[in-house]
């Protein structure tokens, strides 16, 4: 795959991220780097930008995953002398905490999905970018 393919896929990922309420990850601001010698800003190359965007999506899943709840609860109970918390709840409205609280144990199990995504990212990382097109060559089609 070449840069045009990666740019195309970035467009797909950006659309999907916005659709699931994670449009912030698609913000170009995150993928701008400054050249240390010139101070000039530029966008990351497309393949790396795509990988970082997908990795950020994995971050977003990590903080919504039931496995994160289970791991934290296990660690808390291991180091606590006596009983640790039996549940962790969120109370969004101060005046009505008890009525509004919800258990974080109801988080979705995203572990398989995260594994699939991480494997997918690894395949991109391992992907051979292939030879650069000759200066007079036309645009390369997806391989």
């Amino acid at each position, binding site marked *: 795959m070449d840069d045009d393919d990666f740019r195309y896929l970035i467009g797909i990922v950006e659309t999907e991220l916005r659709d699931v309420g994670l449009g912030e990850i698609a913000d170009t601001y995150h993928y701008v780097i400054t050249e240390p010698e010139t101070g000039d800003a530029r966008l990351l190359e497309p393949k790396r930008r795509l990988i970082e965007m997908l990795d950020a999506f994995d971050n*977003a899943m990590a903080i919504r995953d039931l496995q994160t*709840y289970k791991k934290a609860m296990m660690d808390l109970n291991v180091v606590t002398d006596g009983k640790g*918390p039996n549940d962790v709840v969120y109370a969004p409205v101060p005046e009505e905490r008890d009525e509004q609280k919800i258990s974080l144990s109801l988080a979705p199990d995203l572990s398989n999905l995260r594994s699939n995504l991480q494997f997918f990212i690894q395949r991109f990382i391992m992907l051979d970018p292939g030879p650069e097109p000759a200066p007079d060559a036309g645009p390369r089609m997806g391989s």
Partner: protein
Amino acid sequence: MNRSNAETEIKNIFNLYRSALPTDKKLLSALSSGKLYELFVLSYVITNLSNRGFRIVFIGKELKFKGAPGMVKLTDAHFQLWDPGTNSIDWRVFVDIEFQTLGGQNKSTIDASNKHEIDIVVTKALNGYPDYDTIALAVECKSTPKFKKNLLKEALGIRRELCYFTKKLRSPLAPSGGSAPLVNACPPSEYWLANVDAKIAAYQQSPATFSIEMLCLKP
């Protein structure tokens, strides 16, 4: 892998994510506001304090994260840090607390600027809004999937309101006979900023001068 099957895989992953998301708006709000991440960081903090030698005791049944920060209340669920040498409670760990700022305590008139929120706080305070000089450790949990420099700027502001800058005082956060880090802060509080993005590692050096520890903690 080519463009076509990569596109198919991307769409599959997002479709599966979409179908896995809860429909309950309260749960979605809790997850989007980073409360699960706060719990994850809390488990790291408590494990760290246990490794320093404290005996950890949990008070309460269920731990509650609040949508809005508040005061220290001993009736709220929290953790006690016992010194095994003296068999006394040295510190307590609370979540979602507002503390009284250093700057505010230097003024005779109080306004909305004299309190700031801390996600996880280790304090000697037993009730009310803890004063800045009763805090041994303050931890900010930032769940944004991409680290942004404004998070560091915000942390620098909170650090300013917790202490004066000085050279190498020993943190009080260790039981008798234990070891705690040296900090460039008076009073010698520790201050951590946790984020899920590995990019935070590129922002460590300058804040380290002010004993702000930038932690990449990814579940």
